[in-house]
């Protein structure tokens, strides 16, 4: 009895400490709440080097501005003192940075640095578009490289519009036509007509053709330029298309197959058929875009240093110093939460599951594969294993070799499916990476064991209940803020221990027992 009360006191003290530690951090965190919620944060650095010649030399590039899906901050320009710098807003709302020098035959360098925070954006595309107002007329006109009035373009556009029922289908047809053109890293300028003729193009050629076809059919369209930001250095910029649909410019990337969607790492820089960098002709010039992913907490306006300075204890250093890969760290942090959830589902709700952590781990692999396709693969494979092991059951094999047979079959099926998926471009078949495969294997073993211990019907019932627990875990674990919350509040682990202790002492009736003992409970009332 004494040790019991001691434990109770210890747990109460631990909980109080945990709650106080959490409380200390809550205020600064709420004060710094960021409703922008970027998915990805990068430090981007344009690095330019050039040598001026025997005349005035200038270098121009586009700089980004913030909008509803990207936020630009901490702009920082470093250049040698002989360069004069201006920033100019141009038509189309593009912002141009211009460096000029009158020094002759000298080397110059420019560092233009900023922080890019981006999130992806899906656009809903209505079936029928309103007619665009007159102020967008210029987005319907042909240009030298976007020959929307050209006969070849006209013919193709008419053909793409045939047999369509609404505007969305027209755009879809254009998109699919342009997407199907093989992509090639062509550096020379490819105009819209050439793109059709050589049936091969880079992002620029594809975008010009897309715009030309849209304009020909009366949809205002323009080229959008930017950079696909990645954790690397690169020299390529990117172009995609925007079509005006009911007063909204909707993005289409017919190179990377984004239909009415812009991924989080697309840095938008300029509008129109421009080039990102222009400079005085005939000079020596070199450049790179240096990009580095910055660790961040999506709902916090704080930078790394400020997070370090939060009162109390956090796991930020593990993220910031890359001690553990982010995915692994998230799994570690989410396991206790998931485990507690499963404990709740088992002891209070009364679900029967294969193991405690298995539903959590399956839910975790669903985060990799996607929910629907993941569940389909999971159930399909396990049922398949059940069918395969049936004849071996009849043979009367010993348990362990039989498990080896089913697992070998499963691995073969996974490999075949992946091979088939890659060959035929079926994306969901290729998603079984290392981690989900391990989890699937363990689940299949548990299932075949259960078929022996409890029979097929009970095993399938248990599988079904495991899937329910998995889905509930998935709902909670897929909440994108949860890992960050746990990084900021690792004290939650202590609370989970305290809560599990009281859950472990819970002697009430489980929810499913309410149904099981219904006749008895009713009689009492």
């Amino acid at each position, binding site marked *: 009895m004494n040790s019991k009360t001691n434990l109770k006191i210890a747990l109460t003290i631990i909980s109080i400490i945990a709650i106080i530690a959490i409380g200390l951090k809550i205020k600064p965190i709420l004060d710094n709440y960021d409703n922008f919620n970027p998915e990805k944060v990068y430090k981007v650095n344009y690095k330019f080097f050039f040598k001026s010649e025997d005349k005035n030399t200038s270098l121009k590039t586009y700089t980004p501005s913030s909008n509803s899906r990207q936020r630009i901050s901490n702009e920082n320009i470093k250049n040698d003192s002989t360069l004069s710098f201006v920033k100019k807003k141009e038509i189309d709302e593009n912002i141009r940075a211009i460096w000029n020098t009158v020094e002759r035959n000298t080397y110059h360098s420019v560092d233009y640095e900023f922080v890019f925070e981006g999130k992806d954006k899906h656009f809903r595309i209505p079936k029928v578009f309103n007619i665009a107002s007159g102020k967008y007329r210029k987005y319907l006109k042909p240009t030298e490289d976007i020959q929307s009035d050209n006969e070849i373009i006209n013919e193709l556009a008419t053909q793409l519009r045939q047999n369509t029922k609404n505007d969305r289908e027209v755009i879809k047809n254009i998109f699919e036509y342009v997407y199907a053109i093989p992509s090639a890293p062509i550096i020379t300028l490819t105009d819209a007509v050439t793109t059709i003729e050589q049936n091969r193009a880079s992002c620029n050629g594809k975008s010009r053709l897309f715009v030309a076809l849209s304009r020909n059919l009366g949809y205002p369209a323009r080229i959008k330029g930017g950079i696909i930001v990645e954790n690397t250095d690169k020299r390529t910029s990117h172009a995609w298309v925007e079509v005006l649909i009911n007063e909204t410019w909707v993005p289409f990337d017919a190179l990377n197959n984004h239909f009415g969607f812009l991924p989080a790492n697309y840095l938008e820089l300029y509008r129109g058929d421009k080039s990102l960098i222009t400079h005085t002709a005939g000079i020596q010039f070199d450049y790179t875009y240096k990009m580095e992913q910055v660790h961040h907490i999506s709902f916090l306006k704080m930078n790394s240093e400020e997070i370090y300075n939060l009162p109390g204890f956090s796991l930020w250093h593990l993220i910031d110093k890359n001690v553990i890969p982010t995915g692994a760290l998230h799994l570690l942090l989410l396991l206790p939460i998931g485990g507690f959830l499963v404990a709740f589902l088992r002891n209070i709700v009364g679900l029967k599951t294969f193991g405690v952590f298995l539903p959590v781990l399956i839910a975790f692999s669903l985060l990799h594969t996607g929910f629907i396709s993941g569940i389909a693969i999971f159930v399909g494979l396990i049922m398949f294993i059940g069918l395969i092991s049936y004849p071996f059951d009849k043979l009367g094999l010993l348990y362990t070799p039989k498990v080896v047979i089913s697992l070998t079959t499963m691995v073969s099926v996974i490999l075949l499916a992946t091979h088939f998926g890659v060959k035929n471009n079926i994306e969901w078949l290729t998603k079984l990476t290392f981690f989900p495969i391990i989890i699937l294997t363990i689940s299949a073993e548990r299932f075949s*064991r259960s078929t022996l211990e409890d029979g097929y019907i009970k095993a399938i019932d248990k599988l079904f209940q495991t899937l329910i627990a998995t889905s509930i875990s998935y709902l909670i674990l897929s909440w994108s803020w949860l890992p960050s919350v746990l990084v900021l509040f690792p004290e939650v682990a202590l609370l989970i221990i305290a809560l599990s202790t009281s859950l472990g002492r819970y*002697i009430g*009736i489980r929810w499913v027992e*309410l149904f099981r*003992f219904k006749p008895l*409970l009713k009689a009492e*009332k």
Partner: protein
Amino acid sequence: MFSIIFNKKSTVASGVIGLNERNIKLIYPNNPKRHYPLADDKVLTKEILHQYHIPCAETYAVIEYNSDIKEAWKSCKHYSSVAIKPANGCGGGGIKILKKNKKGNWTCNGEMITDREVFQHMASIIMGFFSLGSHDRVLIEECIEPHPFFYEIYPQGVPDFRIITLNKTPLMGMLRMPTDRSDGKANLHQNGVGIGIDMKEGRLLEVYDGKEYSNHHPDSTFLVNGTPIPYWKEILEISVATAKAFPLNYLGIDIVIDKNKGPQIMEINVRPGLGIQLVNKTGLKEVIKQAI
């Protein structure tokens, strides 16, 4: 809110015990884990039963190694019927009842069985085919013949009594019987039926088929409710004796009445199910309160 999540009211109002309470209040404090094998391993159970002279099927042979199979089987050949069981089998898997026919040949379920097939079956028991891969022992024992009392209720399969004891006191009992749908099995979740027992009077109560209560077995017209149970005193006595013999204080004891020898202990369970409360329409907590 909390009382809805944790069902406070209904638990307090009825005397029903759920799995959580069974584990925490009954199993953990009364059944030390290190003694579980005494109940889970049929050979160990029977050793103790024999030691205390508690009636149970006579053990003919226990086989631990493949090399002993032939010898052991030879020593059993003069019996007219035997039951072959894995010591650690689960869910009734691996049990074979062998009987001699008029010509003196061994049969299983009415079909002839060769010595070779018997050896194979015993070998697969030893290799752990019925106990999930772990090495196991073969138990050959006397074959129990059900008392004709049960024929009137339902003539097929082997019905058995389940008595729950706590601290050597019988708390609750039921009679489990096979049905036409249960394939010879008497388990409630395998379509068998449970019949409640009036512990004081030793009479059968209503029949519960998992959904409804009635006064008859679903496959016969015999009036079950109120029927006195033969050997009831002995059944209670051997239950108490068994409970005293084992260092386990919360048990589910399974008993069969043999035609000639009367009540026999079949096996004991350290984690007896809770369905017995439904069969008797009474919560275990209620009964425990009265017993103390």
